[in-house]
């Protein structure tokens, strides 16, 4: 007598429903919990470090992570890793739950190698060759150092995924990046078709008459593009993205929006701009369209860049956004 454990029809039906469930789960998007099997990442992660060598991914989840630069700290915070971070740099100031950790660098950008060693990290993260003087030394002292390459907004999103892979938080990273991506798409959709106003993003006015601004290659420039604005210094790619220009150039370019990014204590005072000599002829001043945005959300390569994009878009296309400008746009942290 032939007895099968499962009849072939039932088997086929079972397989069919299984497949449907798989695809259904695979399509699931934002906000899903991590109870399901890890899904494919939306965009491929970065696998080469800032020096062009392949990144060595750890085999187990690192428990003692040291971040050498503020933007990595923000990424770590966004990935909910504050419990596993043991050291940060002097300039990390967000999120708040990281700021009480031991600082391994000082105000001059000098890193305390001894202290880093003493923290016994199993993963040291840095970005953009900012710590190139220390990377090799720390590596030679036996630490696992990963210095991620610098780039634009989309590369930043990819790097969030890389950090997720490095820290074994791939699911959170995927979700975060998906969410950020959809926020970006949202903004772009809202401002599509509007006329692009001329925008100046200023970084520093401590030398009167010769300010530093966001030029081509900086995040500010990219965000202005994405927010459908025109950065009046888009074509100036000197100074590594932060060229020094003259008042004349600004006055003749005549932007309709001026965005300050300095800390209010160090020149980021909107009222002071109205008092600048010869600036009175600029449209932005005439139309009272001088604003200040927290430099950390349009300069730091991390998740908050999207916040910066939203603030910027709302400032230059106020009619496309409802509600007041969120408080975090003008924060200082």
């Amino acid at each position, binding site marked *: 007598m032939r007895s099968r454990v499962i009849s072939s029809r039932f088997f086929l039906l079972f397989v069919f429903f299984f497949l449907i469930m798989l695809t259904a789960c695979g399509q699931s998007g934002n906000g899903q919990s991590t109870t399901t099997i890890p899904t494919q990442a939306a965009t491929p992660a970065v696998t080469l470090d800032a020096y062009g060598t392949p990144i060595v991914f750890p085999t187990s989840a690192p428990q003692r992570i040291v971040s050498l630069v503020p933007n990595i700290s923000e990424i770590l915070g966004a990935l909910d890793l504050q419990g596993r971070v043991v050291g940060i740099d002097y300039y990390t100031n967000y999120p708040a739950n990281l700021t009480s950790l031991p600082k391994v660098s000082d105000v001059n950008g*000098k890193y*305390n*190698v001894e202290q880093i060693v*003493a923290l016994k990290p199993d993963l040291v993260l840095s970005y953009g060759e900012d710590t190139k*003087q220390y990377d*090799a030394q720390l590596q030679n002292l*036996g630490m696992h150092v990963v210095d991620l390459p610098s780039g634009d907004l989309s590369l930043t999103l990819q790097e969030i995924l890389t950090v997720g892979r490095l820290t074994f938080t791939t699911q959170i990273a995927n979700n975060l990046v998906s969410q950020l991506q959809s926020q970006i798409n949202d903004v772009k959709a809202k401002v599509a078709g509007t006329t692009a106003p001329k925008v100046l993003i200023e970084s520093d006015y401590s030398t009167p008459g010769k300010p530093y601004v966001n030029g081509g290659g900086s995040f500010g420039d990219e965000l202005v593009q994405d927010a459908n604005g025109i950065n009046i210094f888009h074509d100036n790619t000197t*100074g*590594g993205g932060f060229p020094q220009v003259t008042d004349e150039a600004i006055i003749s370019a005549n932007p309709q929006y001026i965005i300050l990014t300095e800390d209010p204590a160090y020149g980021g005072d909107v009222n002071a701009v109205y008092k600048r000599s010869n600036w009175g002829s600029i449209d932005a001043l005439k139309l009272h369209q001088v604003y200040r945005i927290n430099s950390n959300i349009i300069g730091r390569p991390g998740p908050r860049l999207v916040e910066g994009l939203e603030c910027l878009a709302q400032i230059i296309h106020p009619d496309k956004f409802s509600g007041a400008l969120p408080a975090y746009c003008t924060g200082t942290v």
Partner: protein
Amino acid sequence: MRALPAPILLLALSCLLLVVILLAASFGSVPIPLGTIMQILMNGTGLFHFARQWDPTAEIIVWQVRMPVVIGAALVGAALAVAGVLFQGMLRNPLADPYLIGSSSGAALGAAIAFVLPFEVVFGSFFPLTPILAFAGAMLTVLLVYSIARVGGQTPVVTLLLAGVVMNAVLVAFQTLILTLSPHAQFGVQALFNWLSGGIAVTSWSQVVIVGIIILVGMLFALMLSTVLDAFGLGEESAAHLGMHVERYKLLIIIVGSMLTAAAVSISGLIGFVGLVTPHVMRLILGPRHRLLLPASALGGAIFLVLADLLARVVIAPAVLPVGVFTALVGAPFFLILLRNNKREYRW
């Protein structure tokens, strides 16, 4: 003190140096007990085998992080002090320091170039770029200054000094230009500021060994020049009358002095005062004969800088102050006190 025979004095200074090195190795941002440190160090010499009762990271910290810095400080201090003796003796000028004829601005320019270049190392991580360019910059500048000052087979001291001043100004202008125009301007400026303030920037033993060899060779040459320096003290003509080839020795002194300065500066940035004050102090204590003055200044300079570096590391731990600040804060008042205590017009 002058009555004590030279070997005893030198031995005393050497012992003091060892004590100071031990002291410096025992302080840092991470507290490690002195006993542990002593055991670690003695184990390291290979002559002792203490059972390891301490955390392995302590050993890494002591041997890989602290000791290179401390030994580096000792070498830099010795080199700068000896270079100071050489230049003060050749120029017969109490205000001469090792940087006078251009090595400082040359090194700074080399470092500035290194900071803005896109690559970091030459031949792999064995030869980081900054020290190499700083060394090359210092040596080339000095040789350039010498060849400018040399007229008709002679190099008058005044011309040498003036050419050095002019070259310093020109190179600083170049340095500003490079930093302004480079795309890594902000990083370059910060890095250069850190470098100029002075601090022992060694990251591995290999750097210490290479620089150490250059410095030890330089000091050996300097010692061989002791008679020459004594004779130079009488004036160039009198030195010639005593049978010296004055112009040849001047060039040799400049080369050796600059080699020492360049090697020191390549790993420490610009640390002032060591080369100016140490020879003075040693002369006041031990007398002007160079045969004793040179080794004594080397030891004295090493002690001075190791202590300064130690203070720079612990005073506001875990932050690190620039060592140059300390050498000035310590060196200047000390020097002024010595000046005031000499009742007659200052004879050094």
